[in-house]
């Protein structure tokens, strides 16, 4: 069951034992309500995991449904005694405080009006998986006591430059609405949204109790905005900046680290490896020294090992450390020795998660040996290690659960992982050379080895150039607990390297044998057969990513008809046309979104969807080079359910049908 990563919500009030509600494990499937809203939970971040339970706030009736307080009986307000309904609501609110998972809350809100009201007043975390599915005003009107807001903006394919700049997902209207409505707001998590410095300044100003800011894959802000947050949010516990794009001009950047308050801070987590501009190290050291609660620190690559040592000395209680780089800045003679650095690591007795290593001197790698045995998470995905460099390290990492690495370690390196890390749950193998024709250093051999050595594997992301059905089938049998299976064979349409067959059987085995699978990304040469398998067996799949695959519209039909839990479908460069699109008409309301680019859609098909489905927003996104004016072919389609209708901030290249 997913829980928010950092604890920030206020504890529920004490209530008499007889009224305690048992904490339900909400894995039950909720039947779809009349408006077709379904709930989902997933983790799609491409960064160290932050469990974000996902559910839409919708589910309580259609548009225009307003709930007025229902004070029947009594003296019409200001009575000397509370009417019975009021008592019930108070009790109900106390009880519902214990429900934390949004899925449970959505279900509770559907019971009746008083439950709806009680739930709306007691929901503390508001999760909105698509910022355009509901307007800020509406959210704020329904929920009264929100303390945390999680917002997601652009579709995931924006990460791969498929969504043009300026598409949308601005957080400004949200911040403007949240400010007056929730003065006690403590936490904001944003993913793939555009955040300006002004927005950050407004956040800092609007929420005096603000504690946690987490920005993942966001853009639009700079160190100026960070300075405002640092300076004004005196209760800040978490500042996590993960894979954001900052807009700093070299000569305009601000020394934001110096802006934290002079007194002891409540900082628990400071992650800024994506803030690539240099910063004032002494200020950071001083900040760390006066932050006794600091557990997670991830610095950028402007930190040398000498400086890292100083930081570690100031914060021996760290559990998560991102080293930034891992190299010495000193002249060769004055460089720190490995053993000195190793001493620092030995002194960090609580370290369980290591990352960074962006530019590393390999002679310093042995310094981490003292902590390897306790590590549960190791991220080498920015360090081009060879298998010889990896082996001595990973041999000690017996407790590793999460491992991110570059394919430079090769199948040999993965074999070493398989030999030692029998408890591994999550593996991600990234390509050093992310081009189609690169050599590719890992293959089916590595995958097979991992499947044999790591039977508890739950999540895998694997980039390679050569793969076989046999290896994928082996993984499907050896790792039955797989929840996330993402295989990227980088060369387009590549078949099985040994048999020359399509990869249908491999992926078919995955959906057949991995009964807990909720997320799947396919690649390689695939025919409609693969999608028939997916539709037939992929009953729990919520997220499906398809690229350069399939023969015909039947593929889409199989998926829509078969994958009853489908929430997010992203497709690119596949031969699917209007017929395939229309086969999904009955299912679009159950999904968060559908993305299709470079397929064979036409305006006619998309318009038909828009006409028939009133609660869908159908966006046709054009490339700027479309000088041909109105074209029949649709290059990018993004459709999503929404309570608000067409958004009013769409740029000219977005045509909302």
């Amino acid at each position, binding site marked *: 069951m997913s829980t928010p990563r950092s604890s920030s919500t206020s504890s529920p009030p004490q209530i008499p034992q007889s009224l305690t509600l048992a904490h339900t494990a909400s894995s039950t499937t909720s039947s779809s309500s009349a408006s077709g809203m379904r709930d989902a939970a997933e983790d799609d971040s491409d960064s160290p995991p932050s469990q974000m339970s996902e559910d839409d706030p919708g589910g309580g009736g259609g548009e225009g449904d307003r709930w007025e307080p229902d004070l029947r009986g009594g003296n019409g307000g200001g009575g000397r005694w509370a009417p019975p309904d009021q008592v019930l609501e108070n009790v109900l609110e106390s009880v519902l405080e214990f429900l934390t998972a949004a899925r449970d809350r959505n279900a509770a809100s559907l019971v009746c009006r008083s439950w709806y009201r009680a739930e709306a007043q007691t929901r503390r975390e508001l999760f909105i998986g698509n910022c355009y599915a509901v307007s800020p005003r509406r959210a704020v009107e329904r929920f009264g006591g929100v303390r945390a807001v999680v917002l997601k903006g652009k579709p995931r394919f924006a990460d*791969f430059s498929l969504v043009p700049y300026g598409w949308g997902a601005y957080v400004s209207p949200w911040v403007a609405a949240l400010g007056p409505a929730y003065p006690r707001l403590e936490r904001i998590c944003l993913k793939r949204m555009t955040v300006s410095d002004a927005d950050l300044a407004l956040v800092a100003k609007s929420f005096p109790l603000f504690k946690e800011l987490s920005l993942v894959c966001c853009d639009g802000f700079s160190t100026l905005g960070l300075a405002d947050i640092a300076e004004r949010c005196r209760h800040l516990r978490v500042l996590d900046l993960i894979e954001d794009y900052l807009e700093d001009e070299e000569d305009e950047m601000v020394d934001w680290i110096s802006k934290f308050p002079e007194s002891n801070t409540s900082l628990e987590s400071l992650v800024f490896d994506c803030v690539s501009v240099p910063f004032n190290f002494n200020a950071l050291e001083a900040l760390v020294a006066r932050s006794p609660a600091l557990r997670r620190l991830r610095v950028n690559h402007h930190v040398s090992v000498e400086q890292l040592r100083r930081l570690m000395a100031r914060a021996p209680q760290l559990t998560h450390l991102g080293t930034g780089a891992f190299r010495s800045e000193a002249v060769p003679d004055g460089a720190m020795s490995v053993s000195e650095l190793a001493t620092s690591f030995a002194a960090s007795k609580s370290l369980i998660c290591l990352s960074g290593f962006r530019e590393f001197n390999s002679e310093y790698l042995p310094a981490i040996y003292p902590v390897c045995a306790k590590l549960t998470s190791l991220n080498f995905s920015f360090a081009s290690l060879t298998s010889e460099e990896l082996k001595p390290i990973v041999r000690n990492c017996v407790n590793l659960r999460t491992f991110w690495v570059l394919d430079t370690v090769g199948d040999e390196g993965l074999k070493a992982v398989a030999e030692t890390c029998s408890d591994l749950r999550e593996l991600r193998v990234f390509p050093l050379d992310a081009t189609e024709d690169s050599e590719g250093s890992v293959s089916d051999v590595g995958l097979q080895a991992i499947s044999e050595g790591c039977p508890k594997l739950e999540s895998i992301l694997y980039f390679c150039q050569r793969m076989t059905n046999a290896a994928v089938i082996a993984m499907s049998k050896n790792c039955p607990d797989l929840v996330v299976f993402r295989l990227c064979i980088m060369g387009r349409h590549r078949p099985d390297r040994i048999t020359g067959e399509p990869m249908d059987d491999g992926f078919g085995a995955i959906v057949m044998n991995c009964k807990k699978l909720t997320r799947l990304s396919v690649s390689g040469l695939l025919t409609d057969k693969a999608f028939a398998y997916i539709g037939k067996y992929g009953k729990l799949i919520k997220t499906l990513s398809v690229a350069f695959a399939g023969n015909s519209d039947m593929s889409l039909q199989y998926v829509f008809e078969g994958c009853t839990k489908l929430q997010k479908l992203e497709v690119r460069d596949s031969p699917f046309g209007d017929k395939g699109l229309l086969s999904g008409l009955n299912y679009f309301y159950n999904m968060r979104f559908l993305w299709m680019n470079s397929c064979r859609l036409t305006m006619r098909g998309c318009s038909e969807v828009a006409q028939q489905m009133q609660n869908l927003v159908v966006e046709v996104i054009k490339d700027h080079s479309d000088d041909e004016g109105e074209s029949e072919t649709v290059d990018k389609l993004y459709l999503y359910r929404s309570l608000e209708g067409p958004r009013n901030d769409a740029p000219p290249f977005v045509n909302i049908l």
Partner: protein
Amino acid sequence: MEATVDYMKAAEADNLLATELRLGLPGTSNDDHKATPPCTPRGKKRTAFDAAEDAAVEEVTNKHDDVEAAPPVAKAQVVGWPPVRSYRKSCFQQQQAKQISKPTSNNKEEAAAAPAPASNAATPSFVKVSMDGAPYLRKVDLRMYKGYRELREALEAMFVSSNNGGAANLSEFAVTYEDKDGDLMLVGDVPFEMFAGTCKKLRIMKRSEATGLGSPRQI
């Protein structure tokens, strides 16, 4: 904010190749990638986030019927594939830049000045591009290009292809830029990374006006 990159085969000064930074194993070369233009030589758009897409791009249009067939013979690279985030890609360009500049710049100051672009490689760096005679300016993101050749091709695609009836390429023009000190410089003299770090805006001027710049080396 977007730049059209029309990847065309072109002659290149060999000595500039050495200073170009690229991903990939030694010996591989982008010259193998020939564009397979469909009807219109449309380039795929880049977004601001695509700071370090490491190869040229060509859109696989809807009309391209290669999906059911065997892999296309001419392997034109495609936007956003393989699906690795630009953030990750740009970190490696950063690392490569630092490794290359390392032997020459152990001195901290130089490390800050010259390969400063390396540390900023993750963030887009848009500069205005003006061309004599063109009615409006454009903007390009210097982070997107690995070398002068790519930049030239991009500029050609932007300014020369269809709009300007007469010119077929940039040989009639001199590409100049304004650096941090405000001086007008000829593009092509310094290593590309250094240029990208110091260039504030680009100006394409007619050769006839570029007197006094000596015989400009073709970029």
